[in-house]
């Protein structure tokens, strides 16, 4: 019983982290209409930053990694959003972001040496505390707390604040927002920047749990795409449920029956898709 709780906690930590990554992807796809397949590379960049600046675990290095990561993520995300809007078709955007991701991953891989690296948590967070009579790494509880705060803030901003309402309005009808005197493109670039910052920060935060390693970028990309599709392209809440489910599958199921995890993930994808009404282009353009 206690063992299952421990694994479920792991799943929660991973699920919340994944939510932060997927939210960035969901915003760029839903609001900016940009199909960002370099997203996994952004996460990998975050873990690499943490490894460079805080491998041995230092508060200064860790906070520097967070600040640099958020800034670099914002610049790269916003820049990508600005460049990619010239590519109208999602297919071209997919090609361009795959290319961008390959180049970024290539540089990162050269820097961390193409082998799994461990990153120490900041001093004081490296120990364990007792959970139901078992010891549990303190840092994972911190990640759960921080990611939960990030998720809550994100939710409140999108659902309650005026900028958040504008963001949703741009996703629904950019022309209407333009009629209000707000340039939808600016909103889109800002959203892409926020998504980039969030993803790289999540990478820094997650590095002590899951350090830089080959294939981490495509794993995170695939999982967050599953979260986005299963949760709904325009639903911040749906993405949260999907991320928590995927987090549990990745930990609980991976322990119980490793080969089943891919099938369960696919089941989540199908369930999410069929649950929502299917909307495919079935309408003829009208004058």
């Amino acid at each position, binding site marked *: 019983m206690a063992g299952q709780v421990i694994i479920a906690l792991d799943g929660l930590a991973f699920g919340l982290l994944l939510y932060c990554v997927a939210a960035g992807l969901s915003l760029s796809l839903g609001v900016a209409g940009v*199909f960002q397949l370099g997203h996994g590379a952004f996460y990998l960049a975050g873990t690499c930053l943490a490894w460079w600046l805080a491998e041995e675990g230092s508060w200064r290095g860790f906070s520097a990694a967070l600040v640099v990561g958020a800034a670099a993520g914002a610049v790269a995300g916003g820049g990508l959003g600005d460049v990619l809007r*010239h590519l109208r078709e999602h*297919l071209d955007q997919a090609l361009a972001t795959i*290319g961008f991701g390959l180049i970024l991953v290539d540089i990162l891989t050269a820097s961390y040496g193409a082998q799994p690296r461990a990153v120490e948590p900041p001093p004081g967070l490296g120990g364990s505390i007792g959970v139901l009579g078992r010891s549990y790494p303190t840092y994972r509880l911190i990640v759960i707390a921080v990611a939960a705060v990030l998720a809550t803030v994100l939710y409140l901003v999108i659902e309650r604040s005026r900028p958040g309402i504008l963001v949703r309005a741009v996703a629904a009808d950019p022309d209407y927002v333009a009629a209000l005197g707000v340039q939808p493109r600016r909103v889109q670039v800002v959203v892409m920047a926020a998504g980039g910052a969030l993803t790289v920060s999540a990478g820094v935060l997650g590095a002590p749990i899951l350090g830089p390693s080959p294939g981490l970028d495509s794993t995170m990309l695939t999982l967050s795409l599953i979260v986005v*599709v299963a949760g709904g392209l325009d639903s911040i809440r749906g993405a949260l449920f999907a991320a928590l489910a995927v987090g549990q599958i990745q930990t609980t199921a991976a322990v119980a029956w490793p080969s089943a995890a891919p099938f369960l993930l696919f089941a989540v994808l199908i369930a999410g898709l069929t649950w929502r009404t299917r909307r495919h282009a079935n309408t003829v353009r009208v004058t």
Partner: protein
Amino acid sequence: MAHATTREHGAGHVSMDPIAQSSAVHRPRAAHRLVVAAALLAAVVAPGVLDAYTISLATYALVLGLLASSAYVLTNVAGLPTLGQGAYLAIGGYTAAAISHTITTNGPAQLIAGAAAGAAAAAAIGVLAARTRGTTFLIITLAVGALTQTLASRAVPLTGGDAGLAVDPITVLPGASLVTVKGYLYLYALVCTVIIGGALTLMLRSRFGLAVRGIAANEPRARADGYPADTYLWVTYTVAGAVAGAAGAILVATRHTIAPVDGGFVVSGLALLAALLVTRTLVGALLGATVIVAVRDLIAPNVLAGHASALLGGLFLAAAFARILIRPLIHRSEHAPARRSP
């Protein structure tokens, strides 16, 4: 007067036309035929002039070219952009390997089994995937590819895990000896590719192919003509799965190994890139695959040793932006919309 202006614009329109490049597909021009003939000739004489390493690269280019053909059929013909054809390559490859270990070393038999396995898997996934369009389809195929790769690396008893699986050489005719010479393996792959490519061409030129094009370009019109769109796209997805499965079987037959990464995200991406890189035709997909293998395995080691994937990344970016860089040159015309008045 009003009538005259309309006509003028109609005529002006012909010169500025933005319609997709697909015209080349069903109106094979002399130039196109010449390219096909030249490519085929070069492919046939290649083993006589190239060294063993280059021949093995050329063989892989054929495998990737077949995978790109399956991506081409989905992306360019059916309008369903895919990033997951690698999954069916892996399924076909592991099936061929299993056949090789248990039933027969006969290459064509392995090929048929691989294609059948790819088709069966695609038919199952297609029940869901072929009902979606656009970005959702792209994401589903990507997820299918990634999850298949994960499955392949975890199902160690069947697949040997990340280390991969070693496979015995094939025989081509029953009772004949094992084929191990690289040049012959290349020719085997070439013959298979030409046969499959020819079959695909026939399919695309048939009424079925025409209808699939129609569904991609204007689904309501095609449905109003009486074509069940979802069913046709499901069949197309299944055929593409079969071609990718066949590519996997050829990979196993010619390289004697298969690992999960052979059907991974990057390979699926390369297949899509190959389908879009040169000209958007079936032969273009094969040429695109050749270019990609040449860049990755011939040029990259000399230019940017150890950074082949960055070079491929550049190729992806070039392919994405080439279209918008070239488009304005084609579309410039008197009545093109102007953002700003003179």
